């Protein structure tokens, strides 16, 4: 089977893990710490360059590996059988949603590896875990098989636990176990949802064209063979599951468990699982602890990449596979999005710890992502304007990338200060601008990006999300606009307390040396990207939009079909849409209008 993408993409995912194994072997003596650091940094740099090469639109050759701009579907799909008895496959692929996140991951991993220089405890073990973590993250973004996705999802857990629990601050053990516990609860719920979807799915429900489109067929298994097999053909293929979930007679909507449709159960279980990772109020309490205790580079990874996994999961899995539940529970997703936005912002205002403040700002910013994903404004009115929804989802995607850059930058900036003065108390700072002018300039730039200043990356996502939510709910739109003021409040206040002021009076003032070249090399690209995406967002939208638009278009059309079916049947409601009818006020209004 000719799969040109097989080698480069597999290398992208597994190179860090392979290098981790090599470092783990007792080849390199434990004393050669700098060698280990350089090996790890070089590996992450190679992986980054590989990902950029794969993402460059110029690299496309016919049937080759490069990224095809404007192509909404999955590309560079790799498909190898893994566990045949369950139809589990080694199925990787990228599209406009995952490719930017993959590059973000490799980019931030490289910067974090560089930011890990101050780590002096068990250097070897640290980088082994760090590289394993990178493999896990990349795997999640690229896997299209639910089982594989879950495996990669869990692979990230353990390295993260140790990275916080061993190299963290004073309360590291508490923070690490809390992180692990929360995420494991989410994972178990996700596993239940996976089982539900797997055992209800049946590839035979799809047409031959669909089977080809979702990469369910292979040279060994063409559509006719699939149909000739006895019994239902269950699948873990995410694309196939999405196609099945969007069928007019979706088996996920038809099956009932304890009075709710299976679709609703799966959506809720997955949503909680992903919301814990995002994190969304009220599942967010692990985040401030984990961030405060984690070492700086791990905070960067945590805020920059790990939080995006939740948003990615919702976008890639929840909505396409369970559209009916997504429609009827749109208010829930948007509501908790707005709630975390406000709660995170208010909590950030109240913090005395610099890092904790940044952590809560993450909660607040990720709320925009949830709101943008959840806006189902396509049905606000009778027109099924998928553009409105797509605007929100595009905004959410952009916000994820932008937040990845700005939050990693903010955590790094806090880390730079902490390395010098060994405290993070906002009350004891002041006057940093005089002592470290270059650093302060970069830091203020990054904080402005986080604030959402126009011309910086944070602005685009927030404004798109707020605009699109107006069509869905004016209340939510007003609240999210109001949050911008709160954000400005806590960020400006923090800048004032830390960087401005006459002179630094806190402890360890003599250690406030100017920014080093290594730190400069990490901070500059982040600031540059924050500005670049702020003034030229189209560069990113070229990747994101085709896929997002197509997904929104498909789901909007699906919504219209469902609603039309309800309307045509008059008083008789189809059994599968009965639950949607009951639980969805939006749908109700759409139906009642003539």
């Amino acid at each position, binding site marked *: 089977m000719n799969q040109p993408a097989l080698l480069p993409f597999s290398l992208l995912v597994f190179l860090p893990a392979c290098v981790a194994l090599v470092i783990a072997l007792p080849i390199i003596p434990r004393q050669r710490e700098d060698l280990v650091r350089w090996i790890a940094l070089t590996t992450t740099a190679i992986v980054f360059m590989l990902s950029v090469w794969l993402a460059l639109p110029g690299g496309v050759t016919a049937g080759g590996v490069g990224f095809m701009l404007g192509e909404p579907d999955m590309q560079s799909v790799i498909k190898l059988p893994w566990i045949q008895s369950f139809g589990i496959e080694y199925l990787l692929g990228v599209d406009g949603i995952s490719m930017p996140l993959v590059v973000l991951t490799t980019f931030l991993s490289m910067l974090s590896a560089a930011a890990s220089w101050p780590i002096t405890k068990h250097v070897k*073990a640290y980088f082994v875990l760090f590289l394993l973590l990178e493999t896990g993250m990349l795997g999640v973004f690229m896997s299209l098989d639910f089982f594989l996705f879950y495996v990669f999802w869990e692979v990230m857990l*353990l390295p993260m*636990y140790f990275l916080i*629990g061993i190299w963290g601050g004073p309360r590291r*053990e508490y923070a690490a*176990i809390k992180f692990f516990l929360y995420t494991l609860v989410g994972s*178990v719920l996700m*596993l239940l949802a996976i089982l539900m979807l797997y055992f209800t799915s049946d590839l035979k429900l799809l047409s031959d064209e669909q089977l080809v489109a979702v990469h369910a067929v292979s040279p060994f298994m063409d559509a006719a063979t699939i149909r000739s097999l006895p019994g239902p053909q269950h699948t873990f293929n995410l694309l196939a599951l999405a196609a099945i979930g969007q069928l007019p007679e979706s088996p996920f909507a038809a099956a009932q468990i304890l009075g709710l449709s299976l679709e609703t159960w799966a959506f809720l279980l997955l949503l909680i699982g992903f919301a814990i990772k995002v994190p969304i109020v009220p599942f967010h309490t692990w985040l401030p602890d984990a961030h405060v205790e984690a070492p700086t580079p791990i905070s960067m990874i945590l805020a920059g990449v790990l939080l995006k996994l939740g948003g990615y999961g919702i976008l890639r899995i929840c909505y396409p596979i369970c559209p009916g539940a997504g429609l009827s529970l749109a208010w829930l997703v948007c509501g908790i999005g707005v709630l975390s936005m406000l709660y995170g912002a208010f909590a950030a205002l109240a913090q005395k710890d610099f890092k904790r403040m940044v952590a809560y700002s993450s909660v607040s910013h990720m709320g925009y992502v949830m709101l943008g994903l959840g806006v189902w404004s396509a049905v606000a009115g009778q027109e099924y304007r998928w553009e409105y929804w797509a605007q929100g989802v595009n905004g959410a995607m952009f916000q994820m990338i932008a937040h990845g850059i700005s939050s990693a930058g903010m955590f790094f900036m806090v880390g730079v200060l902490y390395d010098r003065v060994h405290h993070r108390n906002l009350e004891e700072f002041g006057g940093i601008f005089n002592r470290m002018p270059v650093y302060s300039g970069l830091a203020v730039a990054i904080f402005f990006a986080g604030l959402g200043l126009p011309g910086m990356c944070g602005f685009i996502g927030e404004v798109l999300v707020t605009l699109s939510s107006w069509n869905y709910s004016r209340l939510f739109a007003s609240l999210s606009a109001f949050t911008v003021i709160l954000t400005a409040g806590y960020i400006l206040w923090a800048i004032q307390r830390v960087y401005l002021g006459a002179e630094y009076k806190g402890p360890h003032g003599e250690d406030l040396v100017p920014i080093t070249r290594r730190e400069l090399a990490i901070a500059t690209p982040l600031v540059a990207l924050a500005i670049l995406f702020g003034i030229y967002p189209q560069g990113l939208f070229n990747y994101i939009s085709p896929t997002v638009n197509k997904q929104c278009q498909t789901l909007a059309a699906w919504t219209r079909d469902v609603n039309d079916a309800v309307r045509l049947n008059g008083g008789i409601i189809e059994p599968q849409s009965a639950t949607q009818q009951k639980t969805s006020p939006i749908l109700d209004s759409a139906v009642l209008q003539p």
Partner: protein
Amino acid sequence: MNLAALLTSTFRDTLSTSMPLVRPEACLAVSIVLILLLRTLPLLKKLDSGLVALGGVCFALWYAWSDVRALPGSPWALVNVSAARVELFTGLLVYDSLTAYVRLLLMGFLVLYILFTKVSGIPDHEDGADFYTLMLGATLGMCLMASANHLLMIFMAVEMASVPSYVMAGLLKGRRTSSEAALKYAVFGAGAAGVMLYGVSLLAGVLGTCHLPSMALRLADLSASGGLETCGIILALGGLMMSVGLAFKLSAVPFHFWCPDVFEGAAAEVGAFLSVASKAAAIALLVRVAFGLGVGVDMGDAVAVLDSSNSTAMFQGVAPLHSQKVPDVVVDSQRLVALEDVRHFIVSLIGLLAAVTCTFGNLAAYGQTNIKRLLAYSTIAHAGYLMMPVAAGLAMAGINPQGSQAAIAAVAFYLGTYVFMNLGAFAIVAVLRNQLRSEEIASYAGLVRTSPGIVVAMAVVLVSLIGLPPLAGFVSKFLIFASLYQAISSGAERPMMILLLVLGGVNTVVSLFYYLRVVKVMTADPPPEQGRHAEIPMVSLSGAMITGIVFPVVFLGVFWSGLYVLAMLAGGMAS
């Protein structure tokens, strides 16, 4: 029929039908005799009995593997394909895919186990002959447990597996805790055996037979004729009492009390044996009894065997008493319908035991400070997980045969991975004990500085026991949850299955704490000021052994197709 004909028929049955299918057991028996004989000869006394045992077990492993290979449906089959189900020794034993699988598992485990005991140094040369004789004897009993088809055989097999274990628990003769462990184990075991024997006699008395398939037929008859209402209480009581014996072997709550004490008192080597081999045999026996009574088998060929050897069996006094009146043929589906109540009873019983065992084991493990006690409670918890798919499989028996097969395959797969996980954990404990002279978790503090390889191996094993990918424990748990969900979706015993699924998930989260605490102590805590330090490089005999045992935990977590095919073969007995 005269005596000569009788003897001829017995002889023929034994030699041509039964003996070829018990070759692994025969190898074990021969090795036992060899080890004992070697002791009497002064010249050969120097010979290491461990090596003799290893040789015998290797032969047994080879035969067990060739039996599995010849199973119908096996992708490795050569020419001779064995029958799916054969009754041996006039119905006392049964040979089917589960028998073959569990025997292969036990023999494979024994090979690893003997190597492990050779490396860890317990037993020493002096005790070796005793120890290996007992161990092989107990394993012989476990093989019989996995193939028992008759209540008397069940009882004898359980005793045969237990009695040597009592002695093994007291192997460290000088230590009071070891003797205490042996005594507790023996007393508890004797009590459980007594209750079980009482249950067996109640069942046999009401049903008039001890032969499991015939008992199922009688139960079906009774149920069809409404007879269950009159003698249902006695049958239920008999079933409950019998489950006491099984629960004791499984260390299921509330018959688990021996387990932590015995594990703590006995050497880690003995703990490994009890927690893996004994558990595997016990769960196989549970499947036997549950499916034997709740589903029964198509008696077509079994009857033929019985008829041909009928008089022989009568003569020996262990005859299935009913065999004269089998001919009123109960069709397969009718029998399954008639046994619905029986299945409901057994599923509820196993499900309840599983739920309580799993939850209790995990909660009690939380407070442990001794690693062997912790592993004992972990073993208890895993017994709970292992019982869940048995309940699910039985619940699906009449509704979804494929699901039933998958459930038993889940059990078989779990056992296959459990061998490496638990043997790995105990091996690490034993190796560390040799250097630290301690089995307290606190004494492992800061171990990562001196023996990083061991810590990684232990972390792999413990995380696999939690059930996180990409390790083997995750796949096992995934399969268990999958079979529970299949039972739910096919509508079999829904409330119980939902309860088990939810509890399984909750327990996975709960178990995180105590497994991870051990890893945390090893990695994050500072090493003790005084006291011993363990330095075990991975490039050493112990290091290689541990790597060899722990590597499959990772390997089977990623490439589990092969083992799953084997497990599905084993599950074939349920469909």
